[in-house]
């Protein structure tokens, strides 16, 4: 009572308070804070990055915003660089193979745990361990596993007779990219599995019963019920996988450093190398801008796939 009388004299305060209590306008306030944050710490650097890719930048002009504008020169030079196409090819291979591996294993595990055997939810929880580990730690572990002389992987492969000679995973140009792909699949599988598990759990069990009565065998149930009902989840998982895979930097830093001879170099690692090893900030920004475009396309696909969710 008293506070209301007190507020009567302050219409602005009253409006603000009522916006909190009624929720009118309060939602906008809530959204605007993180939006401002995003704008300041993601949006501006992003724009700055795009701007840099059209400028001539050297170590002396680094601190300035206004620098000589050179149009598409950076892009032209980048495309002409001898390592450009091999690195793009590597990036594509890395992304496609990582996602394919993560998704297939993740879906298989999700289906496996969905059978609901005793202890399945506990085991599923354990799988999350790989996901909460930092990439550098995962990289270090895989360094040991992949080590040419004493690695467990080589031991397994030789003792099972699949190979006769040790493979030097990290230093052989034929294998270095695959070493990182392997580690990345391991890292991302549990994330895929969890999201896909949630999607599977969202499919009502009576749909399976109805389709079973309608005459569907297990493969037909998978293709006519499970897959279509999971469409939006699968779309989300794959687009998120694309985004995460394009961001994967730690594993390259920890396992191969992009080498040998760029054989395992990918765009995200190359951008860092150009900027902070060769101090060619403009080129680094140019590579980043190309990646921004790719990620944006993935993000649009992601948003679209979540919007097309099947309502039950």
């Amino acid at each position: 009572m008293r506070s209301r009388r007190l507020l009567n004299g302050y219409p602005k305060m009253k409006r603000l308070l009522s916006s909190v209590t009624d929720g009118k306008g309060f939602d906008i306030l809530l959204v605007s804070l993180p939006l401002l944050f995003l704008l300041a710490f993601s949006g501006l650097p992003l724009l700055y990055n795009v701007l840099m890719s059209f400028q001539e930048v050297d170590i002396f002009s680094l601190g300035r915003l206004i620098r000589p504008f050179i149009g598409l020169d950076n892009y032209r030079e980048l495309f002409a660089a001898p390592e450009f196409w091999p690195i793009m090819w590597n990036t594509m291979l890395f992304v496609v193979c990582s996602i394919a591996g993560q998704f297939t294993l993740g879906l298989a595990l999700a289906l496996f745990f969905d059978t609901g055997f005793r202890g399945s939810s506990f085991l599923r929880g354990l799988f999350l361990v790989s996901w909460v580990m930092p990439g550098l730690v995962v990289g270090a572990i895989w360094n040991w596993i992949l080590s040419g002389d004493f690695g467990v992987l080589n031991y397994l492969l030789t003792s099972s007779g699949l190979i006769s000679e040790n493979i030097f995973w990290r230093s052989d140009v034929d294998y270095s990219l695959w070493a990182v792909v392997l580690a990345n699949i391991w890292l991302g599988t549990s994330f895929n599995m969890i999201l896909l598990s949630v999607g599977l759990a969202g499919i009502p069990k009576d749909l399976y019963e109805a389709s079973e009565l309608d005459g569907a065998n297990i493969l037909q149930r998978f293709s006519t019920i499970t897959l279509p009902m999971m469409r939006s989840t699968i779309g989300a998982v794959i687009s998120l996988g694309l985004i995460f895979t394009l961001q994967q930097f730690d594993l390259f830093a920890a396992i191969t450093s992009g080498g040998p001879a760029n054989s395992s170099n990918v765009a995200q690692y190359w951008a860092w190398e150009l900027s902070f090893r060769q101090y060619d900030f403009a080129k680094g920004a140019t590579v980043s801008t190309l990646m921004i475009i790719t990620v944006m396309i993935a993000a649009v696909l992601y948003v679209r796939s979540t919007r097309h969710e099947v309502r039950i």
Partner: protein
Amino acid sequence: MTIQPQIELLSVNKHYGGFHALKDINVTIPKGSFVALVGPSGCGKSTLLRSLAGLESISGGEIRITGKAVNDTPPRHRDVAMVFQSYALYPHMSVRDNMSYSMRLRKASRAEIDAAVADVAAILGLGDYLDRKPNALSGGQRQRVAMGRAIIRNPKVFLFDEPLSNLDAALRVHMRKEIRALHDRIGATSVYVTHDQIEAMTMADHVVVLKSGVVEQQGAPLSLYDTPATKFVAGFIGSPAMNFVGGIVGDTGRAVTLDLPGAPSLPLARTMEPRRQVDVGLRPEHLSIETGGAPGIETTATSVESTGSVTYLYCGGDPEIVVVLSERERISQGDPVNLTIAPDKIHLFDPETGAALR
């Protein structure tokens, strides 16, 4: 109608771990008949139906469909169709695709599918909705699609698990008639689960009353009403439910004295064991109010409800006795009434076992 058994349940038992859900169920269902499974919630109706469909495996006994034991036959080879309480429509498929799903699975030709869908859609009045997804349909329309999906398969047996429980009262009454008409039209054999005894009584040729996994009684709907085998069936069938009053048979065995204030005595139509404790069952619609001093239950009306067509009279206290009168009576709350009943309408039950005493 040929009297050839379509479904036979022979001492079917079902355990869920330590829980005995179905106990020695024996039911024979002739071809072309409409059987209702009724009982209170949790009595095992759905379990029995799902066992028939093959969605649950039974722990003992045998299920036969057209004479063949199907205990080890998976659902898709049993040739039964089921309408789920939730309808279980495929949300990502149009009405057309929902209904033709089974045909597409067995790779029926395009022309065959189109013809069948058109047929079924015409029967169910779904022609205008074939291209809609289930979430764009009303509850009643979804219910029809679920039926269409079953009908299109032309199965040996239709199973319904409370298909009308999600509909409003008026639509329920309408669909009740429609399902029965459909059943007659396609000459199917149907098993229909419901907890609503009115649905069971109005739709079925044969009613099976289940209680805690046991068949309490089965038979024609009116025989369950006229001669209930147990107190449970007597109370379950009929609406409003039968009144039960404790009592004791008189010295002559030709009358029963009720445990009510004033110890009223009612004449019996048959001779019972004298001085036997009984539970007396009086159907509300068999009681009438008498002014002429005939022997009856002297009590007072505690509340009167009139719907226009019938009057509900609530009399006495402990236990309350409900009376349904089809005449409009000028009785108001607090009036004394004398309730009488024809002697042959009195049901007697053993207070220990609940079995009917005849």
